[in-house]
């Protein structure tokens, strides 16, 4: 579990006429084992925000602090593409990101592979697995470092609908089992409603427009009427905020 505090966060790219504002005065607090989704149209700065939180990019101004009980929180990442080392086996891919490699760590990695139903695929190379299985390895890798906070950047956007659905279910179960803070970027409102307690809506220009609480019991079935209504409500907000692409 982590505590994220973002104050007056501002990020721009380029100079002079080419200047693009990616995030504008974002203020945010996220605390506890919450699942927070960041949604918005393309170019609204959602991936930039995630990159800043992940320290892949630095903000132009403003502060970001990610802590766990006063200490620097340990992060985990799941990317849009699985980003596995094709020349290492599945197990070695998990071991690659570990601080040290001991028998206990190996067992821990095996445990997370089993959680994503790939317990028997540790000796396979990524190229021998399907896209869905590769992304499962990516998820297991992120959980295997036992992070306090997990950053996920549209992890299911490359997958077919059926695979994405089963992975969402697995992710939800892992989140419940491990009590992580998860920050999840997606362009799929349905996905956000199905998974999150909280949805942050960003508009073009990187402005945080809305902070929606989704108070529905888990697990949420996308065919459930309440989930469908919640999704419709978020989409209506999109229209009210004039976020729908024209």
């Amino acid at each position: 579990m982590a505590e994220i505090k973002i104050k007056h966060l501002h990020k721009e790219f380029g100079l002079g006429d080419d200047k693009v504002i990616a995030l504008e005065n974002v203020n945010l607090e996220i605390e506890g084992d919450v699942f927070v989704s960041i949604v918005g149209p393309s170019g609204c700065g959602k991936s930039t925000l995630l990159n800043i939180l992940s320290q892949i990019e630095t903000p132009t101004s403003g502060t970001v602090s990610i802590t766990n009980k006063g200490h620097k929180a340990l992060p985990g990442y799941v990317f849009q593409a699985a980003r596995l080392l094709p020349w290492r086996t599945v197990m070695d891919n998990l071991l690659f990101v570990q601080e040290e490699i001991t028998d206990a760590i190996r067992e821990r990695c095996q445990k997370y592979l089993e959680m994503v139903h790939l317990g028997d695929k540790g000796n396979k190379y990524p190229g021998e697995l399907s896209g869905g299985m590769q992304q499962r390895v990516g998820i297991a890798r992120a959980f295997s470092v036992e992070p306090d906070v997990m950053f996920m950047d549209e992890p299911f956007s490359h997958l077919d609908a059926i695979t994405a659905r089963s992975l969402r279910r697995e992710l939800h179960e892992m989140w419940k089992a491990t009590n992580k803070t998860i920050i999840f970027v997606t362009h799929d409102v349905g996905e956000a409603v199905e998974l999150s307690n909280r949805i942050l809506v960003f508009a073009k220009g990187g402005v945080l427009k809305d902070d929606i609480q989704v108070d529905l019991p888990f697990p949420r079935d996308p065919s459930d009427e309440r989930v469908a209504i919640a999704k419709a409500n978020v989409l209506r907000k999109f229209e009210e905020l004039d976020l729908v692409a024209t």
Partner: protein
Amino acid sequence: MTTATAQLPKSTKPVSLVTRWKRSTWIPRVLFPVAVLLFWQVGMQIVRRIWPFAVDVLPTPLEVVDMMWGEVIDPFVEGKQAITRENLYLTFGRSLLRLGSGFAIAMVIGTIIGLGMGLSKAVDAFFHDWVMALLAMPALAWALFTGLIFGMGNRSPIVTVVLTGIPFVIVNVREGVRNTPRDLFDMANAFKVPKNRTTRHVLIPSLMPFFFAAVRYAFSIGWKGLVIAEVFSGQDGAGWTIKFYYDAHRAHGIIGYAFFFVIFALLLEKLVFEKISNRVFKWRPKTTDVELVEALFDGPDDAATATAAAKI
């Protein structure tokens, strides 16, 4: 009402011998050289009837095989079987040593320059045009030029190998550095993986395909350069021996030695490069493996569909 279809079990009927023959690729593969040899043999008979002097110039396949066999068994049978000064093994041994030396030099210098060009635009600009010029330079020109400078001996063939092979090493290593997978480095950075581990597990493996392509190119191009250099400035070696047969006016010797070159290159490819390649790139998926894993993964779903279908 829902309907579902179950997959029928795969046919276990044995495939007939004729179908197997039709499907196999090795028969047409063997058929090609057999057809060539047959055409050659028959053609020679006809040519020799029309033009009797062809006996001195154009050999039959049997004469070539006879000469090659003589070279092969020379050191193992008493008496001299081959007409050359040094036997086949010694000749190729000498050439291989020269090739190895030149190749090693080309790899070391080429890798350093290639790395520099891949990492720095200034270094790339400095070398770019000259590398392109080297690529366009014929091996023959290097062989003559180095022959003039170094005279007879080992140096001319070795330097020719270096000069013909090096641009291929440079270009491949440069491309390797330029194509390092950015997203994997970002992943390693995000997970705070130590730099030396990233170098060992991300940078070096990502360079391997390019490095290996460099090795293969440098070896095959260098091999051709070496033979030409040995023709002009060798006193022994494979190139010199082919020249010897040329001077002796023995066409079967030239053709036989050309076959030895091909066999040697193929052996090198099969026994050395392919073995190393399979070892280094064992992670590359084979199509059948992917299908197999997918089938395993889809297996339970297929079984469920079949069961559902059976119930309906």
